[in-house]
C-alpha cells in the first residue's frame, strides 16, 4: 500500500475527516494549531463546519451543541486550553455526548512551555473537571497512530456515548512520518437521543440536572456501570519481551518508542528487560501489568515526560506485588542511550 509523508497533527485531522467528522471548533494554541488550520483548509471544500471560537470555553460548548445533534465533532488544544475545556467536558460526559477532544500536550503547570510533555496525565485520566466521571484516553506513539486513533476515537465515542480524549506529546503533533492513509468510514450509529427537532417523535431533552438525591445517585451508579463495562472491554496495551522479563519498563506515547529501543539494547547486554506501552491511559491496562508481574517481573520502571504521574496507576495495578521506580524528564524526550544508562544502573544494583 502506498505511503504518504504527513505531520502528526495533520494525520490526526485527516483521520477525523475520514471518520466522518464534519465539525470542528477550536482556539489556537501551540503545538496543536495545525489541526485547526488543516480543518480550516479542508472543510470548506467538503461541506464541513470549521469555526474559530472566541475561547476554549466557547469551543467545548460548541462541541456540546454540535454533538447533541448527533454530528461527529472534534476540538483540539493544549495544556492551558484543555484546562479551560474541563468545565464543558464534565457536562459532555454527564450528558453522554460522543465527541473527540485532542490534547497535543506541553509542559506545565501555569503557562509552562511548549516543549513536549506528558504532564496532563492526571488531568486526562482522572476526569479532569468536576464530578465523578471519566473520558476514554488514547495515547498515540506514531504519526500512523495519530490517524488511526482519531478514527478509532470516534467509534469508541459513539459506541459508549463518551467523550474520547487523544493525548499526544507536542513532538508527535509536529513530526513527520510516512503513513498509510486509511479508507474513509461512514458513521453507522443510530442516535435516537439527538436534539434534531421533534418532527414525528417525542421531544428529546438533554440535561445534566438531577436534583433529587436518589436520582443523582442512580445516575452516578449508571455512569459507573458504563465505566466498568469500558474497563472490562477496552483496556489496550502493547507488550514487548515481557514473557521472561525481570525488569519491565512502562511508557506511553513517544516515550514508549525510546523505551523499546532501550529494551532491545539492554537485551543485547544480557538484561532481561521488557516493555509495556499503555495505549488506553484510561482505562489503564492494569491486567497487562499484573501478568508481567506474574511472569516474574520484580521491578517496574515507569518512564514518563513528567514527574511520575503514571507511577500511581502501576502501583495500583500491582497492589504490592512488585516494586515500582520512576525516571522522567520534562520538556525533553530522553534518547535511548540515556534510558539504557538508567536501566543498566538499576540492573547492576539489583543484580539482574
Amino acid at each position, binding site marked *: 500500500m502506498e505511503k504518504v509523508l504527513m505531520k502528526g497533527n495533520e494525520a490526526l485531522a485527516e483521520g477525523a475527516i475520514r471518520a466522518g467528522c464534519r*465539525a470542528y471548533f477550536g482556539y489556537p494554541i501551540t503545538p496543536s494549531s495545525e489541526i485547526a488550520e488543516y480543518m480550516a483548509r479542508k472543510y470548506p471544500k467538503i461541506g464541513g463546519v470549521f469555526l474559530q471560537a472566541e475561547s476554549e470555553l*466557547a469551543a467545548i460548548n*460548541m462541541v456540546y*451543541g454540535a454533538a447533541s445533534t448527533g454530528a461527529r465533532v472534534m476540538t483540539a488544544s493544549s495544556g492551558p486550553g484543555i484546562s479551560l475545556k474541563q468545565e464543558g467536558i464534565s457536562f459532555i460526559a454527564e450528558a453522554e455526548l460522543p465527541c473527540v477532544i485532542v490534547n497535543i500536550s506541553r509542559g506545565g503547570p501555569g503557562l509552562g512551555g511548549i516543549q513536549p510533555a506528558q504532564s496532563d496525565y492526571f488531568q486526562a485520566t482522572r476526569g479532569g473537571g468536576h464530578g465523578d466521571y471519566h473520558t476514554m484516553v488514547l495515547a498515540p506513539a506514531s504519526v500512523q497512530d495519530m490517524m488511526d486513533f482519531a478514527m478509532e476515537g470516534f467509534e469508541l465515542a459513539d459506541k459508549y456515548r463518551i467523550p474520547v480524549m487523544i493525548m499526544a506529546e507536542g513532538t508527535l503533533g509536529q513530526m513527520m512520518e510516512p503513513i498509510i492513509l486509511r479508507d474513509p468510514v461512514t458513521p453507522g450509529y443510530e442516535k435516537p437521543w439527538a436534539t*434534531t427537532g421533534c*418532527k414525528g417523535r417525542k421531544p428529546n431533552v438533554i440535561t445534566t440536572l438531577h436534583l433529587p438525591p436518589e436520582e443523582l445517585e442512580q445516575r452516578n451508579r449508571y455512569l459507573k456501570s458504563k465505566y466498568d463495562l469500558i474497563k472490562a472491554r477496552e483496556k489496550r496495551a502493547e507488550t514487548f519481551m515481557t514473557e521472561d522479563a525481570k525488569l519491565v519498563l512502562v511508557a506511553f506515547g513517544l516515550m514508549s518508542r525510546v523505551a523499546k529501543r532501550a529494551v532491545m539494547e539492554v537485551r543485547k547486554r544480557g538484561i532481561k528487560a521488557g516493555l509495556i506501552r499503555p495505549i488506553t491511559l484510561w482505562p489503564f491496562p492494569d491486567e497487562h501489568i499484573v501478568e508481567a508481574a506474574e511472569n516474574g517481573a520484580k521491578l517496574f520502571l515507569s518512564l514518563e515526560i513528567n514527574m511520575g504521574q503514571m507511577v500511581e496507576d502501576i502501583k495500583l495495578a500491582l497492589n504490592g506485588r512488585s516494586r515500582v521506580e520512576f525516571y522522567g524528564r520534562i520538556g525533553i524526550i530522553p534518547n535511548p542511550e540515556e534510558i539504557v544508562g538508567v536501566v543498566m544502573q538499576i540492573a547492576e544494583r539489583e543484580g539482574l
Partner: protein
Amino acid sequence: MVLPATPKSWYLPTKPHKFCPGCGHGIVLKALGEAIDELGIQDKTVFGCDIGCSLLSWNFFACDSIQTHHGRTTPVMVGIKRARPELITIGYMGDGGGYSIGSQHLLNAAVRNEKITVILVNNTNYGMTGGQMAPTTLPGQKTETTPYGRDPEITGYPTKGPEFVAALTSDGAYVARGTVSKYKQLKRFIKNALQNQIEGNGFSFVEALSTCPTNWRTNAQQTWSFLEDEMEKYFPVGEFKSPLGKGEK
C-alpha cells in the same frame, strides 16, 4: 373555571411551572410559546436554557431541549446551529448568564452575526442564587452583595445589553428590548427575533425586562412599580435594530 389558554408548544406535564408567584419568567416563556406556535416551528426548534432561574425551563417546552452551563448557552446554540442550520435554536438565559459569566460568548456571537435567537431575562439580580448583584442592578439598588445599594464608583453602571449588541452586530441582526408589562409588544419582539432567524438574516436578540418579587422583597404593587417606574426608565424599551422593516420604539 376558565383556564388561561396555554401555548401548544408548552409541555403540559411540567405545568404549572415552578417559578415563584409574580415572577416574570413565566410571562416571557408564554410569549415565546405563543410565538413558536404562531410560526409553526415547534418540531424544528431546539430550546436551550442557561443556569439561573432560566434552568427551571429545561423541560418547559414540547420541543427538543438542551440544558447548558451557566453562561454557556450561547456557544451551545451556536454549535447546534452550525452543525444543523435547518434547526431553529433559541437560547434562554438570565442577565448574569448573558452579560457577566457568558459575556464573551454573547459579544462574539453578536460580532459573528450567528443565526441564532437569544432571549435574555433582565431582572436586575441573580435570582437563583438568592438575589446578589447582577450586571443590570440599578444604581443605588440593594441586593445581597450590595447591601448599601449599588455604588457605580465601585461596580460600574448597569450593562445595557441590547445597546451593546446593536453596536456590535452588522446588517441582518435583530435587537430589541421588551418588558413583561407590555405583553403584546414583548411577544411581537420575540416573534420578530424568531422570524429573523427563520429568514437567516443574522443574530437575533431580545432582552426582556422582568420581575423577581422574591429577591426584590416586594409586594405586587411595588413589584410592578419597580418594573415600570425604575427599570423601564433606565432601560428603554423598543427595537434597536431590525431588518424586518422599520424599527418600533
